[in-house]
């Protein structure tokens, strides 16, 4: 923080379209027969200008293309957005620019194009290396394509991450270790491992309710998680967040902005942001439906649905629920500055003492409050007791 220039801002761009819906996914994703990509691109550029005008000139720390399936965009569109973002938020350092991609053949054909357009980090939605599992998850690619994608990402990008989903029905710890190991064998620097959860409103929720999907129980989930941590460590990746592993220094800068509760602007349908507006920390939300969002942007220059000024208590809770996911924890000075209240005022003293006594929370040698490995596993049970 000795840098006198203003704190960088993170920018999220949402591309809401997919070739097909995955049955476990509850993201803001839509399948459309025809897409008017130029219209979408103009709308994104308009929102970018809208946010730049009200945030003011700050350096761009990171840019993230998420979805949906942003790798369905043309490299041309991606390039135009990158150029506009860099111009709107000028800075001396090269920002981290990540794009999520799926390993289907169409998208793989575009990876080089994305790199040339300015993307410097790729995040692959591999999910599994087993054809049966991929079919169960409703993915449109095969294990062979997934492996090809990992190889190609490795050769095209210095920084590449991939996602896997575990705790699938019937998955054994041995099979999972093998799967993780094979994926890690490509030498990528970052990995996101997500436990399969049943989200409301998804086809999986209905199948689960009918008893067609039986998830591993809590003890099996814990065992799979422990195996993951071990395998990642063997490959030199350490867990820096509940579900994320990186080679030291290659943590996702963009996602760290969320977890450390830095400012981020969110543009595109349904995107969320946390930015200061007239000096007041504010939560912003965009209209969710792509068509309605585009119409709003065309009519009035932005697709904002809601803006909520966040009082210190709300900020404190958000910062705690995000910050304790990080291995490095929460720095009290930064907490006070961002939340607007001292860290000790945001916590129940008895619960804090108890959690420290049980070894779920600890003060790190850097003076931060962090969840231990055991504490991170129980964070959802701990938080309601801990926060005031």
């Amino acid at each position, binding site marked *: 923080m000795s840098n006198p220039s203003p704190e960088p801002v993170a920018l999220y761009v949402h591309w809401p379209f997919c070739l097909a819906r995955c049955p476990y996914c509850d993201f803001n994703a839509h399948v459309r027969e025809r897409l008017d990509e130029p219209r979408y691109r103009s709308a994104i550029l308009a929102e970018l200008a809208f946010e730049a005008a009200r945030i003011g000139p700050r350096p761009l720390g990171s840019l993230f293309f998420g979805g949906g399936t942003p790798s369905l965009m043309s490299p041309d569109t991606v390039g135009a957005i990158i150029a506009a973002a860099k111009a709107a938020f000028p800075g001396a350092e090269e920002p981290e620019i990540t794009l999520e991609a799926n390993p289907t053949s169409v998208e793989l054909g575009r990876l080089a194009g994305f790199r040339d357009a300015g993307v410097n980090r790729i995040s692959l939605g591999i999910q599994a290396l087993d054809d049966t599992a991929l079919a169960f998850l409703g993915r449109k690619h095969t294990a062979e394509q997934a492996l090809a994608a990992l190889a190609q990402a490795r050769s095209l990008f210095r920084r590449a991450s991939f996602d896997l989903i575990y705790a699938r029905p019937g998955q054994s710890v041995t099979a999972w270790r093998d799967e993780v190991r094979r994926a890690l064998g490509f030498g990528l620097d970052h990995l996101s491992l997500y*436990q399969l959860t049943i989200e409301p409103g998804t086809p999986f929720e209905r199948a689960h309710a009918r008893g067609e999907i039986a998830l591993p129980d*809590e003890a099996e989930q814990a065992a799979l998680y422990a195996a993951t941590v071990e395998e990642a460590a063997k490959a030199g990746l350490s867990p820096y967040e509940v579900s994320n592993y990186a080679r030291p220094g290659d943590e996702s800068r963009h996602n760290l902005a969320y977890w450390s509760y830095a400012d981020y602007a969110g543009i595109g349908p349904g995107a969320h942001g946390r930015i200061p507006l007239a000096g007041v920390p504010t939560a912003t939300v965009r209209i969710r439906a792509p068509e309605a969002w585009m119409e709003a942007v065309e009519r009035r220059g932005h697709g904002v649905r809601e803006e909520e000024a966040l009082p210190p208590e709300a900020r404190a809770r958000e910062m705690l*629920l995000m910050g304790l996911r990080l291995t490095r924890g929460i720095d009290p000075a930064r907490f006070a500055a961002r939340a607007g209240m001292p860290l000790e005022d945001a916590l129940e003293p008895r619960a804090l003492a108890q959690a420290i006594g049980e070894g779920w929370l600890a003060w790190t040698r850097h003076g931060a409050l962090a969840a231990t490995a055991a504490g991170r596993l129980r*964070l959802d049970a701990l938080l309601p007791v801990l926060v005031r």
Partner: protein
Amino acid sequence: MTDTPLSRIRNFSIIAHIDHGKSTLADRLIQACGGLTDREMKDQVLDNMEIERERGITIKAQTVRLTYPAKDGQTYVLNLMDTPGHVDFAYEVSRSLAACEGSLLVVDASQGVEAQTLANVYQAIDAGHEIVPVLNKIDLPAAEPDRVKAQIEDVIGLPADDAVMISAKTGLGIGDVLEALVTRLPPPQGEAEAPTKALLVDSWYDAYLGVVILVRVKDGRLKRGQRIRFMSSGAVHPVEAVGVFTPKMVTVESLGPGEMGYITAGIKTVADCNVGDTITDDRTAATEPLPGFKPSIPVVWCGLYPTDADDFEKLRESLGKLRLNDASFHYEPETSAALGFGFRCGFLGLLHLEIIQERLQREFDLDLIATAPSVVYRIHSTKGDVTELHNPADMPDPSTIDHIEEPWIKATIFVPDDYLGNILALCNERRGQQVDLTYVGNRAMAVYRLPLNEVVFDFYDRLKSISRGYASFDYAMDGYADSELVKISILVNGDPVDALAFIAHRSQAEKRGRAICEKLKELIPKQLFKIAIQASIGSRIIARETIGALSKDVTAKCYGGDITRKRKLLEKQKEGKKRMRQFGKVEIPQTAFLAALKMDA
């Protein structure tokens, strides 16, 4: 209108099982006598409280004065006394009946006599009533008037040949009922010149008038300005107003012998107006009160605690307001290590308990935790003194106890043949002693003596479920008897939770202890710590269950778009914590305490 000669007054009540049409018949009688216009008629005029309407039961007694021009050319005053319809209010019922000379016994012609009807009709017979059987719903295809008449004769022992056949719903036969009241019931007796004696039938609190007292004048008069004396307490009050219900309140000059009506006398709380008391004139007082006065005694007790500790004062106020209107319910402050500050509350029975709880939640918008209901035990100490125990948590050290007595009831159960086996098994399982078993057609009547504490544990729900709703049940208190009772403590991580303690017969103790531990295991969610749940008698553990600690509970994906939702969820969870009770490190949800009520294995 108050100088009606005794010969032209008839005072009557209506005895009926729930749903057999008492309220509908009352409405028809009021309509036929022009008491209310059609526009003013609401369904079931007499049941005022929301709960009364919903449950189809009467909690407070009410009267209606009807004016009926009879076939003999004379105009009669018919006073209908609407009595509470449940065994919990047996004493109140007996006082309402004492205010009348006769009863209409209303029986659903498609259903027949039920247990509750039977208890009330016997009370009416005890009160010396002339009883007119009325068969209702004879327009239904399923009506079997002949069979039901035979049943009335067999079971109750009343001649039913000239039962009045009606359909209260369509109005059929209503004129015959009115004629029967005039021709078949005796007129009241009384001396207009004797010292005033009036029976206090019921009372309630009215926000504008203060306490309104329902009375039946036996001798003398009640008039405005008169100084009256309550004979049980000696309290004296000036009468502010005298009136009758038509059913609207209409003031009159005075009430004479044989008449029913109300008085107000600047009284602030119904606790000063004991049901069954005798009201007399302060200057020329009667020497002897009317017979039959009894102070009301609660038989079932439970703890009521606000879910949110901040609501304690609100609960105290609400209980105070309820007691303004219901002197039979008692409360005293108590504290529980588990539940904090609350009240020990005494009730006339289980229905009364339920009604009060429901009114607190509905009318006063209170969220409550109720502990398991307990009966009143008599503890005989080794020193020879006797104390009453209202709360299992207060049970003294067993070494100081010589013996314990528990209250018994005599229960009458009516049930179709097919389910009799189930019912007998249930009664035996609950330590019942068979007193009588008789058959009427394909229905059996079982009379059992049962310990009251076996009945407060969901007996009624079980009875209904094992008879598919066909069994009807009624009971009367039947004294105390020695019993081998033990206190079962429930321990969470080694600490006893006072609010879960209960008393049971030694023979049931282990089964109940096991059942409650199993139930708590289901109801207490996995937490950050391992939880041991135990049941013990003294220091001996009789059951144990373990709830394992949470090993993993964390959201897999949490990014920029999830924060708002996660924060709102967190706020909701915090709010939810208020509904949990903390025991050391363990949180017990409110539902766990409620489930202690439904503890049948």
